[in-house]
């Protein structure tokens, strides 16, 4: 007898389907040690190992199959899982407990079906080839890309979630996109009539055609385009390709043939343990029907996978009892959210609605018949309400006295749900089933780093929708435990930028190495502390940023004194102080742009940006610009950008001071100053404020008697009006106050803090600032002014400096051992200029095309 040689891996487990849920199942089995005991075989019909289908559309945005993959290539092998990719399971032989594939038979003791679903294509005469495309797999997307070649117009049949996503994909391939929907509104499952109307308005505004209540009867050969779709109502639409996105059907063919019980509307019927009618077979993900329902989202599939893995590991398991189908998405750049009973179908429920026709925004809040809790919501146009509403709905949190406040435009006092209001059971991440309690556990166990928290719990690593909430809860829990939310610059310096600035000045430190050796940790630094210290050194000592000791500290933009663009080329922004430029200089810009074929655009800062230069071209271009009298505009630096001006008293009938003259003076004075963040100025010639000075870090507005000085304004992400610091100043006092203000900011602000945020963090607020700047309460004024004067006196155009030095120019080589340009940079002509080719256009470009 040879019974002694029985393998320790006694049980054989087979998983059919290597999609998102099948993969999660394997991950869970590995984590729970099941793969050590069982022989695991994983069959996947697709060639690629499991990939992130949720982010499939990014395949058209430049991501490749490898970066979408859910694991490293050797993951399965490393954990002893035998993966059979590109192998379809053809049959389940339940009597012999074997699955049949083209490779032969594979016996199992237990079997997990994770076969997902397939796109439903309605039987329409004439739908074939490019008029019968679908949107589910990487191969599908390749087929769409191939069909789009040479096509002008594409139609998506189906106006649900996926249909709109497919329409976006067609748009990104450069096609004119249309959506044809059978129902009278878009996203009929998730939205109500008004929500659908708001979404339609937004999507049409993006140039996507929307055709509602249209049933396609047949597809025939078209006259102007390849195909013509004839609708039931006699209308028609022509197109070069058609993508069907008319719903999905559970892939239950194997189960059906094997005689397993099915759900009423398809899908393999499962119980709360995800077991099918054969106790040796489980089904998870989109192929499973629980209580008659199929769930078309990842989160429920993942929780089914966890339920099964726990059972196989012999652990206590949570039963699967249905799932929340709330979703939040960005479709064609439009926010759409749907929570719970979005249609208000619950008898007796009441709704609050907010409609803003001007911006096509719509929000609906559905509350329970007793008016105490949220049972559903619809959001179109702005998802910032989603997290709060979802928590109200999921946790039965009592509504505030005025529920409508939850969907009204967010003013200062809108009721946001604080992280502390959430119960411990509140789900933070539904993809990975992480509750607030689980986050608290990690914090109690000593986790103080968000990255570590994500690694430990996997929260925010699925669809990513919960990232903001996770961070909020995490930081709240940290401070609740008295853990100071770490303000260290990074792992190398346990100081704030402000403290480091003080150290550098007081100790006269001149290099990064010196500062690191005396006050930091390690030997190298990182991409956080190096640029921050580089900026401190530059504003303290004003060494040229082209100094070899500073080069390794700076971001590429500072290092090469140009702004890197998405394809690795650079933009060039010469200074045009105050926006004033002579016709001759304008001609030079045109000539240089033409010679190097640079995309040319007037910026929002009253100057001209030239895009698309390769690294090795920068010195030649700057040589020509400097010869014509230009100098660098520091568009790459955390430094003075522009001083915007209006024409002022010189030309304008209302102007009371020479605003252009003042703008030129200020721009030339402060150009080159290194600061914690960029600084913008503007000077207006009268209170009509055509230069928008009140939205700038430093704003100057002319009065009959002199100038009013405004500070700490901001455009950008969070606009803030500047505040009036002093009035009716003469030229000289104005400049002295600005010197003091800027230097005080440079000394005391945090890294990457604009003046607006810095000002808000100043204890004592505007009054304190007035005391320091105007009344000189700290007795610092003279020192601040002297320091500024030093910076002004040592100014040198960085590009002029670099061009003088052969050594420095050696860095501007695309390849140090070859003179060719980067062969992977491709451009496409658009509106008479060239722009970077999109990933989807690359196949259109002949390989031999000359790049420069």
């Amino acid at each position: 007898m040879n019974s002694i040689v029985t393998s320790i891996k006694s049980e054989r487990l087979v998983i059919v389907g290597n999609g998102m849920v099948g993969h999660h199942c394997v991950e869970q089995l590995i984590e729970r040690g099941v793969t050590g005991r069982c022989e695991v075989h994983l069959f996947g019909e697709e060639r690629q190992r499991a990939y992130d289908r949720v982010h499939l559309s990014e395949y058209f945005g430049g991501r490749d199959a490898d970066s979408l993959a859910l694991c490293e290539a050797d993951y399965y092998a490393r954990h002893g899982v035998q993966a059979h990719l590109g192998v379809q399971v053809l049959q389940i032989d339940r009597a012999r407990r074997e699955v049949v594939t083209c490779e032969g038979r594979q016996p199992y003791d237990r079997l997990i079906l994770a076969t997902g679903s397939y796109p439903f294509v309605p039987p329409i005469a004439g739908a074939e080839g490019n008029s019968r495309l679908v949107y589910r797999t990487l191969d599908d997307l390749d087929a769409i890309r191939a069909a789009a070649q040479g096509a002008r117009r594409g139609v998506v049949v189906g106006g649900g979630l996926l249909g709109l996503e497919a329409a976006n994909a067609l748009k990104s391939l450069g096609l004119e996109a249309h959506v044809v929907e059978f129902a009278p509104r878009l996203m009929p499952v998730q939205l109500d009539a008004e929500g659908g109307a708001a979404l339609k308005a937004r999507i049409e505004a993006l140039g996507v055609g929307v055709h509602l209540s249209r049933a396609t009867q047949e597809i025939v050969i078209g006259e102007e385009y390849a195909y013509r779709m004839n609708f039931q109502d006699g209308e028609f639409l022509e197109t070069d390709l058609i993508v069907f996105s008319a719903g999905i059907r559970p892939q239950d063919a194997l189960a059906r043939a094997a005689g397993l019980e099915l759900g009423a509307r398809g899908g393999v019927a499962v119980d709360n343990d995800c077991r099918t009618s054969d106790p040796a077979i489980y089904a998870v993900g989109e192929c499973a029907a629980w209580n008659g329902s199929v769930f078309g989202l990842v989160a429920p599939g993942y929780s089914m996978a966890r339920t099964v893995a726990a059972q196989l590991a012999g652990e206590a398991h949570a039963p699967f009892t249905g799932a929340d189908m709330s979703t939040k998405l960005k479709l064609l750049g439009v926010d759409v959210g749907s929570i719970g009973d979005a249609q208000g179908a619950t008898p007796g429920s009441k709704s609050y609605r907010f409609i803003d026709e001007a911006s096509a925004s719509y929000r609906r809040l559905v509350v329970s018949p007793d008016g105490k809790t949220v049972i559903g919501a619809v959001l179109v146009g702005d998802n910032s309400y989603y997290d709060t509403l979802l928590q109200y709905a999921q946790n039965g949190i009592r509504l505030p006295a005025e529920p409508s406040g939850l969907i009204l435009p967010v003013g200062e006092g809108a009721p946001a749900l604080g992280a502390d209001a959430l119960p411990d059971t509140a789900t933070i991440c539904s993809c990975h089933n992480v509750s607030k309690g689980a986050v608290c556990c990690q914090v109690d166990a000593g986790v103080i780093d968000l990255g570590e928290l994500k690694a430990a719990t996997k929260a925010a690593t699925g669809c990513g929708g919960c990232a903001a909430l996770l961070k909020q809860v995490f930081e709240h829990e940290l401070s609740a435990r008295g853990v100071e939310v770490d303000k260290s610059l990074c792992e190398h310096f346990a100081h704030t930028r402000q403290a480091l600035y003080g150290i550098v000045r007081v100790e006269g430190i001149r290099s990064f190495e010196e500062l690191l050796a005396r006050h930091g940790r390690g030997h190298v630094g990182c991409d956080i502390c190096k640029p921050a210290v580089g900026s401190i050194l530059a504003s303290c000592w004003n060494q040229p940023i082209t100094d070899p000791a500073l080069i390794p500290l700076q971001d590429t933009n500072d290092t090469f004194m140009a702004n890197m663009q998405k394809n690795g080329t650079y933009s060039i922004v010469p200074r045009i102080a105050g926006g004033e430029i002579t016709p001759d200089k304008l001609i030079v810009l045109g000539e240089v742009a033409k010679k190097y074929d640079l995309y040319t655009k007037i910026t929002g800062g009253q100057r001209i940006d030239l895009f698309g230069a390769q690294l090795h071209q920068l010195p030649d271009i700057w040589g020509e610009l400097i010869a014509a009298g230009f100098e660098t505009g520091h568009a790459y630096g955390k430094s003075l950008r522009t001083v915007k001006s209006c024409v002022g008293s010189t030309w304008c009938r209302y102007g009371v001071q020479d605003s252009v003259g003042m703008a030129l003076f200020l721009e030339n004075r402060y150009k080159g100053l290194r600061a914690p963040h960029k600084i913008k100025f503007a000077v207006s010639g009268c209170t009509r404020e055509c230069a928008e000075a009140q939205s700038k870090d430093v704003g100057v507005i002319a009065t009959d008697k002199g100038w009013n000085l405004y500070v700490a304004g901001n455009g950008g992400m969070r606009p803030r009006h500047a505040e009036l610091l002093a009035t009716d100043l003469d030229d000289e006092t104005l400049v002295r106050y600005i010197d003091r203000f800027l230097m005080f900011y440079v000394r005391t602000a945090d890294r990457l803090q604009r003046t607006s945020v810095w000002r808000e963090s100043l204890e004592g607020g505007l009054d304190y600032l007035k005391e320091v700047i105007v009344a000189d309460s700290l007795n610092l004024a003279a020192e601040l002014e002297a320091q500024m004067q030093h910076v002004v006196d040592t100014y040198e155009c960085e590009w002029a400096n670099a061009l003088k030095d052969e050594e420095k120019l050696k860095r501007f080589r695309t390849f140090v051992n070859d003179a060719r340009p980067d062969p992977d940079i491709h451009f496409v002509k658009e509106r008479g200029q060239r722009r970077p080719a999109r990933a989807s256009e690359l196949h259109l470009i002949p390989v031999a095309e000359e790049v420069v």
Partner: protein
Amino acid sequence: MSQPTAVRVESPSARAAHWRPLCSRRDLVANSGVVAWLDGEQVALFHLPDSETGEQVFAIANKDPKSGANVIGRGLLGQLKGDLVIASPLYKQHFRLADGGCLEYPEQRLKVWPVRLNGDAVEVGIE
């Protein structure tokens, strides 16, 4: 810094079938990167003249998988939790110089080459 000429500095994993001279040591930039052309491949070379373990050179693929642009050689060099890393200049993800692994997207990995300084020459190992 002195300019040693006969010194040989090898990266930790410097074992290779053939050594191919790519460029001169003077082409390197201290504590920063440059890019060299290697038969159709783009190799980013980083030079640390005096790191904790002495002089070191690394060779890593120049293409950033996230943007598809050839920009890794223009990233910032740093050290995170002990690993020497390079931060991509466009979206700031970090790649370990030793093995090309990405800290933020573990499924991404850049090719790395064995590399050494042989006198004045920077040499990479090829199969």
